[in-house]
């Protein structure tokens, strides 16, 4: 039985990104731009969570919620693929003929996002940034980070969640105002 804490966090997020990342990512990106997106992914995931509820049995909550979202998106695509009107056959044909270009789009999207992330991280206090990177990128525990930076684990946790909140807020604010964070 493997759980996330047996692997490291980096491995988990990187792995899940490979598996379901692009679709979910595209959805969230659209969602940031258009809050009124008719197809509400989170509503559907939430409904499923309510229906199936014995959470004590979920061994990997992070993976579970991620997979649930990915499943909803996949089902949606499946439904749409049967709807002839919404399929752009030219685009489909193009994609089939030029797989490398699609991958390139994926890469460029990721580069744009990471450039944005770099700006956000550069603008936040260094301690926040260090905690965030050590935790997510290096996969260190709050205790390990604490002994490295000479804070209590509790303080490290505070910094972590504030830093994470800042990242999210910066992206959201940017979408709202159309300005750089």
């Amino acid at each position, binding site marked *: 039985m493997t759980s996330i804490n047996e692997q490291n966090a980096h491995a988990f997020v990187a792995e899940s*990104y490979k598996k379901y990342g692009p679709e979910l990512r595209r959805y969230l990106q659209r969602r940031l731009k258009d809050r009124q997106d008719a197809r509400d992914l989170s509503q559907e995931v939430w409904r499923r969570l309510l229906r199936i509820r014995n959470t004590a049995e979920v061994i990997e909550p*992070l993976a579970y*919620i*991620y997979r649930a979202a990915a499943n909803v998106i996949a089902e949606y695509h499946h439904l749409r693929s049967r709807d002839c009107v919404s399929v752009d056959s030219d685009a489909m044909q193009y994609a089939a003929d030029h797989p490398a270009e699609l991958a390139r789009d994926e890469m460029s999207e990721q580069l744009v996002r990471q450039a944005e992330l770099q700006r956000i991280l*550069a603008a936040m206090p260094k301690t926040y940034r260090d905690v*965030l990177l050590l935790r*997510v990128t290096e996969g260190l525990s709050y205790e390990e980070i604490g002994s490295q930076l000479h804070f209590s684990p509790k303080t490290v*946790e505070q910094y972590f969640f504030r830093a994470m909140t800042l990242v*999210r807020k910066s992206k959201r604010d940017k979408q709202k105002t159309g300005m750089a964070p």
Partner: protein
Amino acid sequence: MMMTRIDDETRITQEAARWFGSLIDSNARRADFFRWLEESPRHVEEFLFILADAQDLALLTGKQRQRIDELSREIGSDASASPNVVPLCRDAPVHFASATTRDVETTSGAPPPHWQPGARRLIRRWTAALAALLLLTVGVSWWLTGPGSWRTYSTEIGEQRALELADGSVVDLNTNSSVTVRLTDTSRTVRLLRGEALFSVKHDPRRPFLVHTSSAVIQAIGTRFNVYRRDGRTQVAVIEGLVQVSDATDLTSAVRASTTPTRQFLNAGEGADVSDSGNVSEPKSVDAARAVAWRQRRLVFEEDTLGEIAAEFNRYNAAVKIRVDEEVAGEEHFSGTFDADAPEAMMQALAGDLALEVTRAGNEIVIRRREP
């Protein structure tokens, strides 16, 4: 209103970030995590955003991370290092005097190049300062005591209490009962920890009203319903409106068998039982007046066993307890209406039954089969 919305948004982001941070290391609190997710679709959404941000973070290369430090030195936000110190105006605020924030907002196109970068930077710092303040004050206080936190209300044996929630809904708590309540802009969640409560729910389609017990979830829109957690089951009775009752089935087996978890819609005058194993019974008609008679401290029995009757009285009375001999506990069926605070009255009624012997010893009333 605007302010409330922003605060709630920030609060949810903070909560999602906190959950993500704690789940990386340990899954010990996963049950609480799922409870949090279930409170609102907004929680689910925000958590997905946090996950996506974390992915981008995890995928930063060493080179990209070095670049962050360079960037940071370029925009000059790094010097203060300590997150408790917000760099308000490390540059002398000379430029600020020559350009108000209003100027910056209204001047589009090409503002005078000599002040613009400084003013921009200042505004950016003010925004950062405000955000930090919001995080520190609003965040911390909301986290501890704000509308986003859980509040627990309880009654002692014999006590009854009516609670008016901030949304206008009313919760009547019966004897020896406990609920914990959390209201936010996007959710209304009640956990019935023990006992019985009558919910009179204010209609608010934006905020689902959910009542959880260990085995059931009851969702209401605008309605009145009674929920009673007793040994082995949760009983739901609807007085007005419509509610949905669903179970809390074992997740893995539900997934494996791809079964739809049991779920029932209940109309006014209907009720259902949810067993501790999560089975939701078919809707059955219930006497609504009887279901809420407890608010008048009346106990109404209809063909109930002596064991059930004794258990009901004992919920309300700490001073006098009724004990029923095992031999008769499950057999005898009685009907009648009694005052919850007067077990003696019931004792007298039972004493008329020739098959039973009712004796009082100290603060205990014992009911057993009369020896022939």
